[in-house]
């Protein structure tokens, strides 16, 4: 296997409702990534595009072929990845594998989504399609409902009073907003106070709106090349040191593990092993905080804190920049936004910027190794990617 690097990364600002199509957003991010990589667009050999719900958002299935054409690349193979919220991470992992194998030298991988085009009732319906249509949705389970049930389970399993856990969860969202307010690409550019959090409406008990990521539009794209190619193109290639991916069935079939997410533990172990690194080596993580509880569960399954203690760590500031592990310095899904099909690529975009030291006020000083963590559905897909400086 060859070593593989990210030669360049591009990302639109994430936002609420806006007029452009997902293909146009993808084009913006892709051309920025191509320009930054110092390649010509014609050098791209394949396009791997994450997109969750183009069919419902814009009546656009098969979006990848049209995205390739929009970029003047109609001749190359283009594949769509639909792994719910982990779509772009699955695309990046496959791009890594194809380049590592030697089959391709230069691949564009990322994703785009225009979730706000659906409106909340249809978006709530379509997001629920990423859980089990027969044995979960029949009961009226929605996506906030999945993590609401995991929150109650978490509180009970680790014997944490719900009031205390709720306070810790508010702090997760407050931290995300703090960093998003310092990220010009973030959907929400304002901080959140405990007072705002307390009066937020209930969505699925015990989760309130403040615990939930928004519906978002946006795109993010990476240029993925062999290490040799990347070193000729850029002074600061970012190496893909390790990747992992695993699957799971519905919540009912995850009985033995919940609230732990087994697919995450498998994927993380693969990525740590491939990179020859462990949790202690990671300077920052962009993790899947689709709901505040999801962040705590991720921090524990990834090995940063013992089970049942991530909330305490958040309260002590150990997940802030300068703490034990810098968590979601981009603002995370919660406040940077969560255009589903683009999210994994946006996580990688932030890690690339951090490793290069380009993040200004929210820079993790001296960051050398970063990780992404992306969860699709109710744990149905889990991808982890470890990135490190290649210079």
């Amino acid at each position: 296997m060859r070593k593989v690097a990210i030669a360049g990364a591009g990302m639109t600002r994430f936002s609420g409702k806006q007029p452009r199509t997902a293909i146009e957003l993808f084009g913006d991010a892709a051309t920025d990534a191509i320009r930054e990589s110092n390649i010509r667009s014609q050098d791209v050999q394949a396009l791997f595009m994450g997109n969750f719900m183009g069919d419902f958002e814009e009546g656009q299935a098969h979006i990848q072929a049209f995205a390739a054409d929009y970029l003047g690349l109609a001749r190359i193979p283009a594949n769509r990845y639909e792994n719910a919220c982990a779509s772009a991470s699955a695309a990046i992992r496959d791009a890594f594998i194809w380049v590592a194998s030697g089959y391709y030298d230069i691949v564009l991988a990322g994703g785009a989504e225009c979730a706000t085009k659906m409106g909340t009732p249809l978006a709530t319906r379509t997001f629920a399609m990423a859980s089990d249509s027969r044995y979960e949705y029949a009961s009226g389970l929605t996506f906030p409902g999945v993590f609401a049930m995991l929150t109650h389970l978490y509180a009970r399993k680790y014997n944490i009073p719900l009031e205390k856990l709720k306070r810790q969860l508010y702090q997760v969202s407050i931290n995300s907003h703090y960093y998003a307010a310092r990220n010009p690409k973030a959907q929400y550019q304002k901080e959140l106070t405990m007072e705002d959090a307390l009066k937020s409406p209930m969505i699925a008990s015990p989760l309130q709106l403040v615990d939930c990521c928004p519906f978002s539009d946006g795109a993010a794209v990476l240029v993925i090349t062999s290490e040799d190619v990347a070193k000729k193109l850029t002074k600061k290639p970012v190496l893909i040191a390790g990747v992992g991916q695993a699957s799971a069935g519905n919540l009912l079939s995850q009985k033995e593990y919940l609230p732990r997410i087994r697919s995450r533990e498998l994927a993380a172990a693969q990525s740590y092993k491939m990179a020859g690194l462990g949790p202690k080596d990671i300077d920052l993580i962009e993790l899947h905080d689709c709901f505040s509880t999801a962040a705590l569960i991720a921090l524990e399954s990834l090995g940063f804190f013992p089970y049942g203690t991530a909330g305490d760590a958040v309260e002590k500031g150990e997940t802030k920049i300068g703490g034990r592990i810098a968590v979601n310095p981009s603002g995370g899904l919660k406040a940077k936004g969560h255009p589903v099909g683009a999210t994994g690529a946006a996580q990688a975009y932030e890690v690339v910027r951090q490793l290069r030291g380009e993040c200004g006020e929210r820079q993790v000083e001296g960051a050398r190794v970063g990780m992404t963590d992306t969860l699709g559905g109710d744990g149905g897909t889990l991808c982890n990617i470890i990135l490190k400086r290649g210079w």
Partner: protein
Amino acid sequence: MEAKLTFKDFNEGLKQGKLSGLKCQGCGELIAQPRILCGKCGGSEFDSIEFAGPGSIQTFTVNYVAAEGREAEAPYIVAIVELDEGPWVMGNIVGLKPEAATIDIIGKRVTLSGVAVFQGDKYSAGEAARPLFKLL
């Protein structure tokens, strides 16, 4: 090969108040939803079984924001119940006001008390039943 238990079998059974499942002949695993191979041992031979109905609440949520087409149902209680035989199933808790569903209901005994059917929408290829549980 043909599956021993299909969605149609499961759904029709549930509508008549039966919680259908599978017992793996290879490892004895009990499963409360259709599957073609055993997740534990990979076995393909199953016996059909029926679960009795009693169990305990493992977790729940009161959902206030329903998906398109199901707004009239909200608020409602979704729960995961561990059947006495072991497997987990998802359903709704009935006979309890949503505002009374606090974390204290976790661990409480329940039993199958009926069935409700999501009649389906234009996306769902028809109906899907779910069990209703009441506190014992």
